[in-house]
């Protein structure tokens, strides 16, 4: 019951937040010079003024900004994200098509980074100043400092061109029309390199945060107490230190999860992964405002949801916290 009330309250609070984001985005975007019609005409080489007027009329760009805003707001209230004239397609379906690949890539990378990162951090902290610590610190420093696109390209050269183990790019093998487990295997093979390229950076961050956090907790009185009770070292670590040490990592992960929906433009570009990041980038470049606003809206909603989830995870980890 308390949970339901908490959730209801938070979702109620989210409404003005999302609405504010929508309004702010709309006007911010209209500050950018140039419009969709001129970009489209520019790509066509040349166009007559009549043609461009035709485009502007079709896109609704010839109406006053206030009217455009009214129409937009009304559509949003119906949860209608509008129509992308550039792509000749409804915004909703454009985004939904990309959500699955983006989610798959980001969640895989994120889960791997979180799991391996915290584990490495824990191992490094428990063996402080040992060779394990040194190796893990070095690896995470290198991973942290390596640009994702460079790593991606190097992996393509080694694993796709030289060794031929993995496909260079894409979501699945085009034209292969795989079904069932074949398709899962195929997508998995395509997923490996982008997920690694993306995960490595986050992995480094979590490893370092975890290491620092564990070291801090180990010095606490309650750890001494637990040891004094005669608990095994493993029990001390898992039962006491780990749960407390995870809190800063969860906070960090919560902040970074906001990037999930936006995807990583760089990794998506390098691996030709059909994600939301490149969709947003192209929409911005071509002043496809309906599409861009739609993406902003979806990611704002997702951030709200993720923040909520992070708060719930806190409660699970630390019983002292209350809803």
């Amino acid at each position, binding site marked *: 019951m308390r949970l339901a009330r908490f959730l209801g309250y938070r979702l109620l609070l989210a409404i003005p937040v999302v609405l504010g984001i929508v309004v702010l985005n709309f006007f911010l975007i209209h500050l*950018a*010079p*140039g*419009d969709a019609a*001129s*970009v*489209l*005409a*520019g*790509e*066509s*080489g*040349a*166009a*007559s*003024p*009549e*043609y*461009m007027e*035709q485009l502007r009329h*079709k896109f609704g760009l010839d109406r006053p900004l206030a009217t455009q805003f009214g129409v937009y707001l009304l559509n949003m209230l119906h949860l209608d994200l509008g129509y992308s004239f*550039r*792509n*000749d*397609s409804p915004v909703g379906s*454009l985004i939904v*098509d*990309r959500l699955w*690949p983006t989610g798959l890539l980001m969640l895989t990378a994120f889960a791997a980074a979180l799991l391996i990162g915290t584990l490495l951090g824990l191992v490094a902290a428990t063996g402080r100043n040992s060779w394990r610590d040194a190796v893990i610190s070095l690896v995470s420093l290198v991973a942290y400092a390596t640009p994702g*696109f460079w790593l991606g*390209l190097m992996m*393509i*050269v080694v694993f*796709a*061109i030289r060794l*031929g183990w993995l*496909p*260079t*790019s*894409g*979501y699945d093998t*085009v*034209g292969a029309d795989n079904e069932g487990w074949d398709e899962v295997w195929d997508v998995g093979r395509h997923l490996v390199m982008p997920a690694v390229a993306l995960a490595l950076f986050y992995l480094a961050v979590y490893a370092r945060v975890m290491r620092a956090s564990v070291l801090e907790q180990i010095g606490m009185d309650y750890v001494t107490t637990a040891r004094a009770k005669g608990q095994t070292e493993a029990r001390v670590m898992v039962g006491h230190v780990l749960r407390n040490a995870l809190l800063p990592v969860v906070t960090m992960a919560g902040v970074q999860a906001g990037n999930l929906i936006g995807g990583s433009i760089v990794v*998506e*570009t*390098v*691996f*030709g992964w*059909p*994600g939301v990041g*490149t*969709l947003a980038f192209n929409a911005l*470049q*071509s*002043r496809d405002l309906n599409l861009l606003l739609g993406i902003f809206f979806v990611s704002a909603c997702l951030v709200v949801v993720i923040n909520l989830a992070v708060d719930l995870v806190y409660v699970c980890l630390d019983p002292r916290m209350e809803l």
Partner: protein
Amino acid sequence: MARVLRNAGTLQESSGLSRTFDATDLSRRTILALPLGLAAAASGARAAEPKRGGTMVMIVHPEPSTLAHYAVSAGNIPPIATQVYEGLCTYDWDQNPQPNLAKSWEVAPDGKTITFKLQEGVTFHNGKPFTSADVQYSFMEILKKYNPIAPVMLAELVAVDTPDPMTAVLRLANPAPYIMKALSGRDLPILCRSVFEGTDVLQNPSANKPIGTGPFKFASWERGQFVRLDRNETYWKPGLPYLNRIVARFIPDAATRSAAMEAGEAHFAGYSAVNYADLARMKTNPILDLTTKGYEMTPAQSVLELNGRHPHLQKKEVRQAIAYAIDRKVILKDVMFGYGQPATGPLSRKFKTAGLYTDDVRQYDVPDRLDIANRLLDEAGAPRGADGTRFALHLEVNSFGEQWLRQAEYLKQALAGVGIAVTLRSEDTATWLRRVYTNYDYDLNEPFLSQGVDPVYGLNKQFLTSQIRKGVTFVNDTFYSNPEVDRMLGEGAREPDAEKRAALYKKVQQVLAEDSPMIWLIDVQYVSVFNRRLKDHTTGPLGTQQAFERAWMDK
């Protein structure tokens, strides 16, 4: 050390302009052929017999925003759209029209009517038969109204008559000889009337699910990934096409596009989808080869535009001095990696085949060009100041790719050499287009200009006084206005006699080169990279922008 030197030597060789048959090539081929046995070697010696089946993966870059080829003429649409939409004609290597959806045609002596006899037994992918009504509807209701090139190419078209289902007659207000160059599926595609009739053309669902008569049918479009085209089993040309399927893949990153070719995942990358910088490496790959063929009817130039309202740039001497100051060979070598040729004037050399190009114009690439440039600038009343600078200009960097930044950096250097200080300004596409073509707030601009199939397209939009049109992209933004050029371009468009026409355009090129309203830098050459297993992919001057109906995959 010796090895390093030898490698450097090979690199240099392979980046040469013309592709020659060399010993390394031979040995590589021999080594590859050996394990395959004698049969393979023997079949290689004969004229190869096309094999049916297989999927060809081509790289198209960037991903088109729409496949509404009839209303948007962006260059990345035709490689896909021309597999589906056909035109009345195709073109042979001499750029003469050849029968396609039109079996034959006749141009009236006065040049004002063109009568097309249409191919019988052709059906659209939705099963509807192709008739003259489709030709009429395509030209009058769609192309003339919505195609961006129509205001020039179809300006003279008054009506299309349909005396019978297999005859279509184009009626023109004045002779328009250039129409005969624009009848391919790339420029003036034929659409199915019943798909469009009674609908809003610009919102028609076939914008992204094209329905045509071509050898391949549209199957699906996974946004951000690929377009799939499947063999048209009822194609009207017997036995064609050979391929079962074409997949057009979209890979945003240039290095990954190259990698997909090297890994053999993709078989064809036309229209310079592979960066010029990577071509030398592609050439050394045993499974790949390159060709510059198939772009004979795709002339384009990179140019430096000068704002004719700028107090210095409105002087002819200053414009000429800038033309002298730039070494086009440096741009060719360092920006275009040797592909293309230094431009001599307002028309690309690709118009040589049509007999319309001339290099008998004022020459700017002369040994003492820098002295001439400095003298002209002195005479124009722009002497060097105490710091050696005469005046300062802004250059708007073309936002369509990294190579244009490289070009801009060279231009800055070159102009500094004659005392003109240039500041580069990089903005995103929408901002750049707005600044240059709507606000006219620029000094120097380095666009890339397609010249269409006939000079009437490229020259008219750049140099006619009537084409100074605020807010319209890639038209006359240099404010060039010369009544003599206006007159000659008007006559040139209507002149049916080939020789008289050539003389008119020769004169136009001479006057323009002398006036130098813009600096013509490079006659651009696109390059196709292909997998050696893919055969007969480039069968005419439209190359990538015509159907791969004869292409086939060797096993």
